[in-house]
């Protein structure tokens, strides 16, 4: 009782068309933003520019690069990302390694201690009060410390160590008189570059893209990361632009270049990650996969 049978070729055709439609839907907005960032704003808002750039201009980028707040935000984000990722690895790797060693006593207890934080957390307000009472408000540490490591990352890194660090290697070195510090730094870490790359990349992307911690913990504008500056330009500013005020003439001009700046600033902030990830994609995919083994 087959209603219809699809030949192999027919199936492939339909499947390919389906995927192409999805690809267009996903990629088109990105190409549009990229093209609009170097097109004449008039052409963009009138609809003349719909795929490829029209009347190429780099005014948007000039304005973005002339903006001190954006530079400062960029610099802050780079600092937060580098320092935050370094601390992440410093907390994560030794802990995950220790949890992978079979001579560790009370392992179950410690694992539960870590896992419980996945199930339950104090929530926004108690966490805020703790961060505040530790004097981290308005410092870089408020961006970095509250999410320094997650239980999930520890499980993933631990699974990696368990699978890829041979027990005999560690035991033989210990018999030869090597300390655990020495073994970890000189032997385990060099063997663990893939997992270090995965964890560093995941965490760096999160740090680069997060805005919420900065929103609630920072009030000094000089410490704002890029995402908070972006929020002002892309999301909040929208309201301000619609406010009446200022001379009519300058307002029209302002609105025009404001549009251009928005496209340019999206590209400037997102391009670093979008250019890098295809080359390190296999590490990311690996990370997702090691994580799923545990389940």
């Amino acid at each position, binding site marked *: 009782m087959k209603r219809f049978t699809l030949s192999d070729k027919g199936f492939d055709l339909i499947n390919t068309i389906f995927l192409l439609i*999805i690809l267009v839907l996903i990629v088109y907005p990105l190409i549009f933003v990229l093209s609009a960032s170097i097109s004449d704003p008039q052409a963009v808002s009138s609809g003349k520019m719909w795929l490829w750039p029209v009347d190429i201009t780099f005014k948007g980028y000039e304005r973005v690069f002339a903006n001190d707040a954006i530079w400062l935000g960029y610099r802050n984000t780079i600092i937060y990302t580098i320092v935050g990722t370094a601390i992440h690895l410093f907390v994560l790797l030794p802990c995950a390694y220790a949890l992978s060693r079979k001579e560790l006593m009370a392992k179950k207890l410690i694992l539960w201690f870590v896992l419980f934080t996945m199930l339950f957390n104090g929530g926004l*307000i108690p966490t805020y009060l703790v961060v505040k009472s530790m004097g981290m408000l308005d410092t870089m540490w408020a961006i970095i410390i509250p999410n320094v490591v997650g239980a999930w990352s520890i499980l993933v890194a631990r699974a990696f160590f368990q699978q890829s660090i041979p027990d005999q290697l560690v035991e033989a070195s210990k018999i030869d008189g090597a300390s*655990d510090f020495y073994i970890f730094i000189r032997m385990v870490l060099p063997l663990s570059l893939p997992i270090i790359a995965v964890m560093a990349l995941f965490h760096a992307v999160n740090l680069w893209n997060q805005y919420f911690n900065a929103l609630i913990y920072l009030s000094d504008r000089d410490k704002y990361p890029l995402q908070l500056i972006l929020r002002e330009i892309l999301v909040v500013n929208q309201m301000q632009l619609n406010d009446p005020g200022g001379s009519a003439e300058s307002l029209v001009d302002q609105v025009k270049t404001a549009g251009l700046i928005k496209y340019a600033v999206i590209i400037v902030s997102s391009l670093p990650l979008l250019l890098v990830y295809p080359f390190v994609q296999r590490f990311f995919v690996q990370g997702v996969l090691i994580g*799923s083994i545990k389940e």
Partner: protein
Amino acid sequence: MKGVKNDISVPAQSKFDQVRKNFARNWQIYVFLLPAVAYFILLHYIPMYGVQIAFKNFFANLGIWGSPWVGFDHFERFFNSYYFWRLLKNTLILSAYQLILFPLPIILALSLHEVKNSIFKRWAQTLTYAPHFISVVVVVGMIVIFLDPTTGLVNRLILFFGGDPVNFLTSPGWFRHVFTWSGVWQTLGWGSIIYLAALSGVNPELHEAAKVDGASRLQRIFHINIPSILPTIVVLFILNIGSFMTVGFEKVLLMQNNLNAKTSDVIQTFVYQTGLLEGQYSFAAAIGLFDSAINIALLVLFNSVARKVSDNSLW
């Protein structure tokens, strides 16, 4: 003969001696744990201890411990307030909407898995992952640009086809659709990775046997591929349920304005607003606690259902 084994290497040692010996030999491994343990205590367990302010009237000068107990006052006030039902409804609908679309990454993975041309497949994967690397601020910024009532691409298309422009961002009726589908745009490709991996583990002999029996491609997808990745699907579904009430509120916060608040006000944004903007710490902590209590209850409930029905569960 059984039980003798232990006695060969460790003759008559007390538990205490064993612990001391292990510690003397391996103390450095315990040092490895210190940074992480300190972090979890300071930024997870102390806040958990601080949750008690939900049952107190928190005064900064009295501290968490010194503030007076008020029992369930804050919870009662929240449950009896006129916005309680609105917040709960908005949160539940937004979560349910996202949950309904849970199968989309699975469909993408099933489709990608059927592609034989490996270059096309790799390009398709790389391109669909791209939005995952864009920040939520930028995504909302793009939404604002594309849906602008006069200059936005979407409204120009509507005009072109003779419709009336829609102000999507200030309309309560559109908020949920815009929020959820922009989320699909961002997470579709990335979400499919795990299913693709599960699919690559399907035993090829099953397909060979089905081919011999004359099964079509679609039949093989439905009767081999989907059942094979069902355990993965179940586990990820439970994990999704576990964050049911969380709804990605950092994005809601960015998309929210006075005009769409009727549908965009969710429990988490309300906690942020009352707690951090208005400084009602205890009240907001109580609402947050209510939220995570529901999350845990749902997680436990669905996990036990899944264990009974399908043998697949988190624990």
